[in-house]
């Protein structure tokens, strides 16, 4: 319920920002009718922007929610009830995943007014949307547990999450990158998220989908275990 209270910041703002990006790129490109493979640039862009909004929202929700509780010292009210670490992680992750998915759907819905969208494969779209939210929520939780001030969360956000999402093929195909950078980009897990999500829409991809899924599932599992371990040890949560 935390995020509904501030819905203008948590929903409308990301939708507007994503639409702005779409407008900028569409306008900047207009005139030369550029297309990416078989699809128009706008169709290429929409999945990237949607997933970017979704990931940012899921991360922000998990990290800020927990961080605030730590700072105002109400975290004890969440830790005290008889819940196992696993249940705590599920609770936090589910709520952040919800926010991520809601923001993602809102962005997508808003964009359908401007761009014609075809969906190649619903199951893949849903799979990638959910795994992206879960992955980012877990990452948000870990960040918030580790962080001691809002500053730390903001730094992770600005210096890790933002660059990784910007540079993982949201706005361009990794084929445009010089060879070495393209290779590096293929080690970025976010790249597989965006690439796979986009495949669900346009039916074309840059990277290897199977490897992508494997990496994602492994990462989720790893982060999940880490979260549970952090909660059960009480690291930086209990004094």
């Amino acid at each position, binding site marked *: 319920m935390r995020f509904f209270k*501030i819905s*203008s*910041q948590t929903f*409308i*703002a990301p939708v*507007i*920002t994503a639409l*702005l990006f779409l*407008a*900028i*790129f569409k*306008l*900047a*490109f*207009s*005139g*030369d009718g550029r297309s990416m493979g078989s699809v128009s640039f706008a169709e290429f862009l929409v999945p990237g922007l949607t997933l970017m909004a979704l990931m940012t929202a899921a991360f922000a929700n998990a990290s800020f929610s927990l961080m605030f509780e730590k700072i105002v010292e109400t975290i004890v009210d969440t830790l005290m009830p008889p819940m196992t670490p696993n249940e705590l992680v599920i609770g936090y992750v589910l709520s952040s995943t919800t926010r991520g998915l809601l923001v993602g759907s809102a962005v997508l819905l808003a964009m359908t007014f401007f761009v014609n969208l075809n969906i190649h494969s619903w199951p893949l779209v849903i799979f990638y949307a959910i795994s992206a939210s879960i992955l980012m929520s877990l990452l948000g939780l870990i960040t918030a547990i580790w962080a001691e001030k809002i*500053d730390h969360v*903001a*730094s992770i956000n*600005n*210096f890790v999450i*933002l*660059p990784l999402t*910007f*540079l993982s093929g*949201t*706005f*361009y195909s990794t084929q*445009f*990158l010089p060879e070495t950078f393209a290779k590096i980009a293929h080690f970025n897990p976010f790249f597989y998220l965006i690439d796979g999500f986009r495949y669900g829409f346009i039916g074309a991809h840059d990277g290897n989908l199977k490897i992508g899924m494997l990496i994602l599932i492994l990462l989720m599992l790893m982060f999940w275990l880490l979260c549970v371990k952090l909660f059960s040890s009480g690291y930086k949560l209990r004094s």
Partner: protein
Amino acid sequence: MSPPITELKITKPISSTNWRGLWTLYSREVRRFIKIIGQTLLAPIITTILFLIVFVVAFGKDRQIGELSYTEFLVPGLMMMTILQNAFANTSTSIISQKLNENIIDTLMPPLSPLELVVGFVMGGATRGLVVAIGVGFGLSLVIPISINSISMVIFHAVGAASMMGALGMITGIWAEKFDHVSTVTNFIILPLSFLSGTFFPITRFPELLHNISYYNPFFYMIDGLRYGFSGQSFGSLFTGIIYVLSINFALWVICYWLVKSGYKLKA
């Protein structure tokens, strides 16, 4: 009979400027953002450089806009965007957090005239905008050759924009009652305007109607003016731009002065 005036003489006439107070306020404002340098300076620098990378990769380097290469077109736009956003962010968040912490009184109590308060706050915000822009320019100049056509136009537009957005941030901070209000103005007004005023593409790309509206958008003239200062190419009228920047600055400063003087939403 009243005592001779000489006995009441105050060593310093009350109307003179309180330079020390002004300096203290200004340096307090500057130290505030330096304390959180990661968020206030480094983050915007990184974000702007990311924008550059993303746009240049997505467009290819060889595209031309007018007689300019795309990077020559983009760099001044990005620098102006950082000035606009950071100058605004500094004054607005500084004032709203002082209001929320209820320590704004410590700033209003000392013997500083409303004008001195306005100058202190706005200059603090402008400093942040300019420092970030210089950081961006410096960072970009390592990868892209940046030439300057007219240093006076660069300075005029950079300082004009920084001061204008500092004042606008101050007005927003004074008007706002919660952090939400400040972020609403940032997300729904400042960000769209700074994105859509010819930062990333020439406004001729807009549909007819928006294109015509853009000629009334002050942000467009500031971006255009700064771009002229760097590249010697402008897309709008430089003269209109200068008049615009000066008159808007004047108007916003008057509003700030008047708000601080009346104590609107600052004093109970």
